[in-house]
């Protein structure tokens, strides 16, 4: 996927002026967070589960090699294949090879952010294999040659009219704006694709080491058809998704559904354990798991290891006031919101991704709702430290900070400076008590007034009082 992250500000500007998007974001702001709050309210042990989830994930990351190898062994025992992909390119090639082995013309796809991350659709298309997204949101996006703006509600930025137009342009049927009609239309069109597909590709929310199973969690059921109808099922997932046991998996399922949509349980929780066995009613003949690394193993042993706990629930972006203002596309790559602001620089490099970890007030809301307690603001700050060390911040910001630091570290000089600027601001403001323009602070005064200092500085006033003993 094209990287537009350096243009965050321009994209944010456009997003702020896009009325349709703003309407959609306003709904999101109240939708998921309110449902989550109710679900959490109904579960007194939720906080304890979050701690358990955090600790368990920490344990897994300490022993990731062990659990991944155990998972691989089990998949093979079940008759499946495991492929290790260090990079996005490796992953794409592995998947294409499997498709070509079975002479695949079309593949159906369940919703998967990892395949977005590696740019699988474009790659398959360029090589003569047609991918068909089957998640309704993803399907709409594919018709529009668009990309997800949210990790679990990919088409959240679109409205009904957008969908109606996309269907009309591609389905060769009369135009409708009735959601029920559109839904039925999608069902009918997709049903043909399901039957025709040679390969089904899904992601995985978790990989269970003790059984060699993968699980997908959906509310549409499209994933089930994607993975059971074609002869070949490829699971494309990433290495941090492994959990030791089925029981451990259920802990995360409980956290995931509540944190994501406020559901107690997602509608479809589908486990895949190897290819069809003798006597099975259905299931694929070939079962492949592609384990994508793509920079994740480099995070182990660094301050970013904590990010590998992420279970992709989207709570952080649902509650983020910046995401809520500018939407997912402003972030300019696959992963938006706070989790994206930590992950994206890891995957595309801080040189290109630096805008994101800076686009945060560190309000801490994301960390407070994260089901595995990832300290997202702290990790964004680590990226800023990385930028600072590499001198990547804009010159004005660096010089500004350096001059400020020079003063702050010299209290006597600092007092002179504050006295002077305090006096200047008061003189400019005159009787009004506030300034509508201030040199070097147009970012502030373009949008709001700058309250002027009330009087001389506190330190001046305090000194005088101490001298005169006047405490009135």
């Amino acid at each position, binding site marked *: 996927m094209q990287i537009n992250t350096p243009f965050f*500000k321009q994209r*944010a*500007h456009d997003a*702020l002026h896009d009325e349709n998007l703003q309407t959609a974001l306003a709904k999101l702001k109240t939708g998921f967070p309110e449902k989550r709050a109710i679900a959490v309210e109904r579960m007194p042990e939720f906080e304890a589960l979050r701690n358990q989830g955090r600790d368990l994930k920490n344990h897994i990351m300490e022993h990731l090699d062990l659990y991944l190898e155990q998972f691989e062994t089990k998949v093979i025992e079940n008759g499946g294949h495991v492929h290790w992909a260090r990079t996005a390119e490796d992953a794409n090639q592995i998947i294409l090879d499997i498709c070509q082995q079975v002479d695949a013309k079309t593949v159906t796809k369940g919703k998967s952010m990892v395949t977005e991350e590696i740019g699988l659709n474009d790659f398959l298309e360029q090589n003569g294999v047609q991918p068909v997204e089957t998640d309704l949101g993803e399907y709409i996006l594919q018709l529009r040659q668009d990309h997800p703006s949210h990790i679990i509600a990919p088409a959240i930025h679109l409205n009904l009219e957008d969908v109606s137009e996309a269907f009309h342009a591609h389905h060769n049927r009369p135009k409708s704006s009735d959601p029920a009609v559109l839904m039925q239309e999608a069902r009918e069109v997709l049903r043909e694709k399901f039957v025709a597909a040679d390969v089904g590709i899904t992601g995985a929310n978790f990989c269970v080491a003790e059984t060699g199973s993968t699980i997908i969690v959906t509310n549409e059921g499209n994933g089930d058809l994607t993975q059971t109808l074609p002869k070949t099922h490829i699971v494309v997932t990433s290495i941090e998704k492994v959990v030791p046991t089925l029981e451990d998996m259920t802990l995360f399922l409980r956290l995931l559904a509540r944190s994501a949509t406020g559901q107690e349980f997602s509608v479809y929780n589908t486990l895949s354990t190897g290819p069809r066995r003798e006597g099975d009613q259905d299931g694929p003949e070939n079962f492949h798991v592609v384990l994508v690394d793509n920079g994740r193993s480099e995070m182990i042993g660094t301050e970013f290891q904590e990010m590998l706990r992420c279970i992709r629930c989207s709570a952080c972006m649902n509650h983020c*006031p*910046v995401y809520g*203002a*500018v939407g997912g596309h402003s972030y300019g790559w696959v992963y938006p919101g706070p989790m994206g602001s930590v992950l994206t620089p890891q995957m595309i490099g801080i040189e290109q991704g630096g805008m994101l970890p*800076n*686009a*945060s*007030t*560190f*309000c*801490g*809301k994301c*960390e407070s709702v994260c089901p595995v307690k990832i300290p997202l603001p702290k990790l964004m*700050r680590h*990226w*800023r*430290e*990385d*930028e*600072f060390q590499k001198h990547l*911040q804009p010159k004005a*910001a660096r010089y500004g*900070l350096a001059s*400020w*630091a020079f*003063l*702050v*570290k010299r*209290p006597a000089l*600092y007092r002179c400076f*504050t006295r002077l*600027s*305090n006096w200047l601001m008061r003189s400019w403001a005159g*009787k*009004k*008590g*506030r300034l*509508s323009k201030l040199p070097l*602070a*147009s*970012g*502030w005064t*373009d*949008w709001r*007034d*700058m*309250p*002027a*200092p*009330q*009087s001389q*500085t*506190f*330190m001046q*006033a*305090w000194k005088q009082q101490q001298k005169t003993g006047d405490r009135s």
Partner: protein
Amino acid sequence: MSHTSSGPRVGLFVTCLADMFRPSVAFATVQLLEQAGCRVEVPERQTCCGQPAFNSGDRQTTADIARQTLDAFDGYEYVVAPSGSCIGMLHQYSDLFDVSDPYFQRAKSLAARAHEITSFLFDVLGSSALEAQLKQLRFEQKVTYHDSCAGLRELGIKQQPRQLLSHIQGVELEEMDEAETCCGFGGTFCVKYPEVSNRMVSNKSHNISNTDAQTLLGGDLGCLLNMAGKLKREGKPIEARHVVEVLAGMTDTPAIGEADYYRAKQL
């Protein structure tokens, strides 16, 4: 009570914003602490808590500022500031030093002694310490309260200022929608991403004006300057004050960003 009392010796961390923009916030803090029986001192070698450097990724400068602050506040039983954000920063100082560095332990000690003012009055000294004085005050206003992020989420400040306010006669608190949502200040964020910040503070201003409140209260001057500046730019009649001004009965000074009528009259 005077500052010669025998209560705990408290170092006031003024905060750079109160020093520069609103000395009455620091004076109100001093008064509240003295009323509660503390001996208050203002160490000369303090400047800023270092947050601008910390959040810009400059750990070296942050550590230098942390050392300076640690030196300045050595020996005080408590360190109190009228800001959850700055106290939150003081609590993080130990992350800046290696465990073998003597400043590490000193930073740990500071974190245990450093409190935001409303939390200090309510949680540390106990709610009864000031109750009698607060009950004598009168502030006939409908107010609404913005929960600043660091105070709320790092220090757990939510009920403390509300409880203290509830003792004052005439105060009527009406909660706004999304009182816990960030106002968009975020230190340098508001000038680095002005448009996004503006959207956030516009939402805030909208939620504030949807109440009947005449006065917006909060516990952090950064957020208050941001919100007051927006309310004034939009021509809204709502005034903004730091909560300590009300708690100390110092409400005859003009609110944040308001014209100084007394001075205007004199001129």
